[in-house]
């Protein structure tokens, strides 16, 4: 699993994740991901290129959102409507972390904090 970071306008950090966000993948990106959410206040996590999502991945996302939120910031997820989005819905994650299907809406979602 890969992690890449892009800085967007308005102080928003876009974190692009790629591959299988399973127990194995989460263990790879957990440390760099935690470093980003600890430093930044506006974070957009792009799951468009994520093909699989497990409960361990949800744990990583929730911990990240809690860290950003504790600083008065906001973490949102960009994810097309696919099986990964289905996992987020089934786990109730989408009720805790805003999930958007397009980048423009996601960027506006981060900025609204």
């Amino acid at each position, binding site marked *: 699993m890969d992690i890449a970071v892009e800085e967007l306008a308005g102080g928003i950090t876009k974190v692009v994740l790629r591959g299988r966000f399973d127990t*194995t993948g989460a263990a790879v990106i957990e440390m760099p991901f935690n470093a980003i959410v600890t430093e930044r206040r506006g974070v957009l996590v792009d799951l468009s290129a994520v093909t699989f999502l497990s409960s361990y991945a949800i744990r990583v996302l929730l911990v990240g959102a*809690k860290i950003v939120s504790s600083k008065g910031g906001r973490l949102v997820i960009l994810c097309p409507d696919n099986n990964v989005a289905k*996992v987020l819905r089934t786990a109730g994650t989408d009720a*805790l972390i805003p999930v958007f299907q397009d980048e423009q809406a996601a960027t506006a979602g981060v900025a609204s904090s």
Partner: protein
Amino acid sequence: MRSDVAELARLAGWIEGWAQRGALSPDVSFAIALCLEEAVANVIMYGGAGDERLQIKVEVERDAGISTVRIEDNGRQFDPTQVPSPPVAASLEDAKIGNVGVHLMRSFASDMRYERRNGLNRLTLRFLEAQATPKQAG
């Protein structure tokens, strides 16, 4: 399989190959891969990660549009069907971390049965080809 989370990557590749050979729908393939990952990760975590005595056996079969997955292990007794679904959190601040895995299995599998026999945990999950969407929580 050994009691090592590194085995999960090998399992993921194996089940993906099996689903492709059987021409399973992408939704059913995803559901099977998800439930297997959650079930085996639970066995490794609760059954004793790194314990060389722990053996996990996974079997899959498909018949008349129904895929059946059996996971058998000699670890500590653990019945995932008795794990309650986590309560719905009112806010991010109140949200508890964890307990989601079994809830996902219950939702993405059509049917989940557990039995303890001869000192072994045996979990049987079934997936119907027609059931492409997860069941509602409850």
